[in-house]
């Protein structure tokens, strides 16, 4: 039976087989050792981790009941605001920024005594698919450190895949949780837009951003999702989880469940990836699910629509970095305006600048209708297309990425080609749907292949149920050589 790491460690803590402090120290040591190779962390927080661990040990010593996530070593992506802990978005422009408030997800997990090992590496402002636009250099893939961990939440995936953290929170705007999870052979859940509060998540594209868990098993993903999917009055778009905790239905059988495959998702996908998706379909048949094939023509506009909307919002969201209130500030300037321009020109990396410029362009007078407005209308079309799809199937099965993790520094020079790596993940964000990526095989070089399950809005329970059944039946997970061995 596929078991979660969180439940296992929770049991060990309750049974006093290991103290919380020992557990934390083990992960801290492994992290300090392996981070040199993985570059998963950009800030480590051992003191904080050990203090929390002590508190948990006290509770256990007093015979108090502890929650499932209490004392479990975890990480936060470096775009999730943490009061008193540097939060840089892996950008020079926030190199020394220390928030004075907590993101809502961190407030929630703090209350549950989550043991924070550190803040994880990411593409600058979450703009990238390889983690290599990070000012700290890219995180490495635990299955082969010559390959990228993926992006933008590369550090989180590298840390969990390398088992120097049990789980991590990432953010997903166009695939930034699912794609690196896929590349690193682990599980990544992008919740329904609004299921998890965005308050404190440093915005890339507000209408697409969503925080979610990166874990080594489906059960862990379900446990973390249940914990963080709370309504938040600070976020006007927040709704929280609809319905019961997803853990309750995780292991239900899926006889008669309709698994949909849209042909468009397989176009231009590498052969070995396509095959492992078809194998996954067979596994589902063997579990009594029904496979239905259908067309989703609206998908062919998903990628340009995504880049137009994401960059438009980003150009506005990133306007505030002017050196005056926080972050990097240029030294030599003529006047305020000159200071702001120098700060931004020196503080932002090339990819970020490129997206700001594109976003400014598509919103500017004369282009708004042709780009932004048109993209917004096509977004409506894509939303409806998925609505209809879920009239004929319960969940959609698709690849996470058309390929597997590529070598470091090979993030294709052509910007558009690079964007194509997101083709299977962006539709979910455009339509605000939940999507989960989990390992479904390995390529000839032993690099993981990820598959994606997509559900209707607030149907997390369904996709996690389907994901767990596959994970349990196919049992493809391979641990990396890194990290903690318990």
């Amino acid at each position, binding site marked *: 039976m596929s078991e979660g790491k969180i439940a296992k460690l929770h049991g060990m803590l309750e049974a006093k087989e290991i103290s919380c402090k020992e557990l934390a120290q083990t992960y801290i040591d492994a992290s300090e050792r392996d981070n040199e190779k993985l570059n998963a962390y950009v800030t480590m927080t051992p003191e904080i981790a050990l203090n929390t661990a002590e508190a948990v040990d006290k509770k256990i010593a007093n015979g108090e009941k502890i929650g499932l996530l209490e004392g479990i070593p975890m990480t936060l992506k470096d*775009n*999730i*605001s943490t009061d008193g802990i540097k*939060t840089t*978005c892996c950008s020079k422009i*926030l190199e020394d*920024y220390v*928030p*004075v*408030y907590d*993101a809502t997800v961190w407030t929630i997990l703090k209350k549950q005594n989550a043991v924070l090992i550190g803040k994880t590496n990411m593409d600058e402002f979450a703009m990238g698919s390889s983690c290599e636009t990070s000012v700290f250099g890219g995180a490495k893939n635990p299955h082969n450190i010559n390959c990228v961990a993926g992006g933008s939440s590369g550090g989180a995936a590298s840390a969990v895949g390398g088992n120097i953290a049990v789980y991590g929170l990432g953010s997903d705007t166009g695939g930034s949780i699912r794609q690196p999870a896929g590349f690193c052979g682990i599980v990544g859940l992008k919740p329904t837009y609004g299921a998890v509060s*965005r*308050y*404190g*998540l*440093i*915005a890339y*594209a*507000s*209408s697409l951003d969503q925080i979610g868990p990166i874990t080594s098993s489906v059960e862990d993903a379900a446990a973390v999702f249940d914990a963080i999917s709370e309504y938040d*009055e*600070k*976020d*006007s*778009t927040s709704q929280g989880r609809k319905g019961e905790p997803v853990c309750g239905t995780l292991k239900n059988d899926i006889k008669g469940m309709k698994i949909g495959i849209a042909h468009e998702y397989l176009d231009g996908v590498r052969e070995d990836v396509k095959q492992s998706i078809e194998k996954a379909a067979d596994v589902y048949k063997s579990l009594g699910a029904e496979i239905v094939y259908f067309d989703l023509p609206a998908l062919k506009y998903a990628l340009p629509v995504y880049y137009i909307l994401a960059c*438009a*919002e980003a*150009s*506005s969201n990133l*306007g*505030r970095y*002017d050196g*005056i*209130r*926080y972050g990097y500030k240029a030294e030599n300037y003529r006047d*305020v*305006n000159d200071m*702001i321009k120098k700060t931004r020109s020196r503080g932002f990396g090339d990819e970020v600048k490129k997206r700001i410029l594109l976003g*400014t362009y598509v*919103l*500017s*007078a004369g282009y*708004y209708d042709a780009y*932004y407005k048109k993209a917004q209308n096509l977004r409506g079309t894509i939303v409806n297309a998925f609505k209809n799809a879920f009239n004929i199937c319960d969940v959609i099965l698709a690849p996470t990425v058309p390929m597997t993790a590529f070598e470091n520094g090979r993030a294709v020079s052509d910007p558009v080609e690079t964007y194509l790596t997101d083709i299977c993940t962006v539709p979910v964000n455009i339509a605000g749907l939940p999507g989960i990526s989990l390992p479904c095989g390995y390529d000839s070089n032993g690099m993981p292949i990820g598959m994606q399950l997509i559900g209707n809005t607030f149907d997390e329970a369904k996709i996690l149920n389907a994901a767990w059944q596959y994970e349990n039946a196919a049992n493809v997970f391979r641990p990396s050589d890194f990290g903690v061995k318990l």
Partner: protein
Amino acid sequence: MRYEMVAGFETHVELATNTKIFCSCTTQFGGEPNTHCCPICIGLPGTLPKLNKRVVEYAVKAGLATNCEIAEISKMDRKNYCYPDLPKAYQISQYDMPLCKNGYIELSNGRKIRITRIHIEEDAGKLVHSRGNTLVDYNRGGVPLIEIVSEPDIRTVEEAREYVEKLQLIMRYIGVSDCKMQEGSMRCDVNISIRPVGSEELGTRTEIKNMNSINFITKAMEYEFNRQVDVIESGESVVQETLRYDDVSNTTSSMRGKEDANDYRYFRDPDLVTINVSREKVAELKAELPELPFEKQKRYVEEFGLPESDAQLLTKYRKIAEYYEKSIEGTKNPKTAANFIIGQIFRYVDNESEKESFNINVSSESLNELIKLIDSGKIRMNLAKSTLDKMLETGKKLNELISESDMAGLDENAVKELCRQAVESNPNAVNDYKNGKQKAIKSLVGYVMKNSRGKADPMLAERIIGEIIKNS
């Protein structure tokens, strides 16, 4: 050739809510720099706005009070421009779906100044420049504003003045803003052009920005009108530009254009959701609106027979009107109360804010009592007046100042006695009267009144004196 002015207003009014439009910081004016701030209103990365319910309600009330249609569906947009007083580099405002549109304000000359739209938005912080340094204070950042945009319907500075004063009056009356121009809670941009009288075309307009005094506005408009006339007369043409008014030199000067031609790149704010004002809500808010000053004024003239000028003085401030209406409840003569308030009580309230709050040590109830005493003939006008003055000075209650006996009045015999004394001790006046000087009798009556401390009935006294003299 004769020219006429064509002017329109964009008026920013700060709403008198407790908290800012998107966070729970106070909106109080002033305060130490950056002490009315939180992560949201200084735009820390990751923070999100949450719309203040009362801002929507106040804006709708402002719309209803200016005869606007209230939009059922509305939304917030981002107006993108980078300036140090704007922490997010965009102002959350409303672009193509304002809360209120198509209203008007009627001027005393019967002309209607059309209101194009009223929308809600956030105020910016304040920049202070000293020795080339720029200091930024975000206390004002995020304070809720409504922007009231008028059509270019204004033709004279007098109309401009009345328009602004009326706006101010309305907003104060319905309680959505204190409209203190000196504190910047009401600011006006005026766009102005000229055209030959009789022409229907619009000339090239200039915009005078950010004026916070009605006198400046009218001066600036006069100056700008004459400037444009001179430009045209001298055969040149007016350049469309944004101007600043300098009250010291009483001139307008071009604000040097920011390097970038403005392109605000408006788009819907993805952090905020649709605003839906139900018709029930609109009805509810309409019901909460008080009778507006002009309606009151009209009613005071028609119902109470007050002269226009009195009605205006009594309705200009909501508190005063309320005081007046309480003081005349169940009395016969509303004019008396008006005279008391305007003639005597107003001496105790000097400036605007004192009239605004109208705290005086004679309650409307005791003024009401006093007037009822007059109605019932228990005391005479001049005694009432002097009593009111004493009350205003000492803050003493009515019954502490005049006793029952004061109110009793004098019986006829007592009056006869006093009249006899008057005749005896004023032979000259008596002779004058006998010699046909009708007026002379007044001084004799005066004697009676004086010696009865105002309690005698002067009519009665005059009759008796007349008889005494005739019979002597």
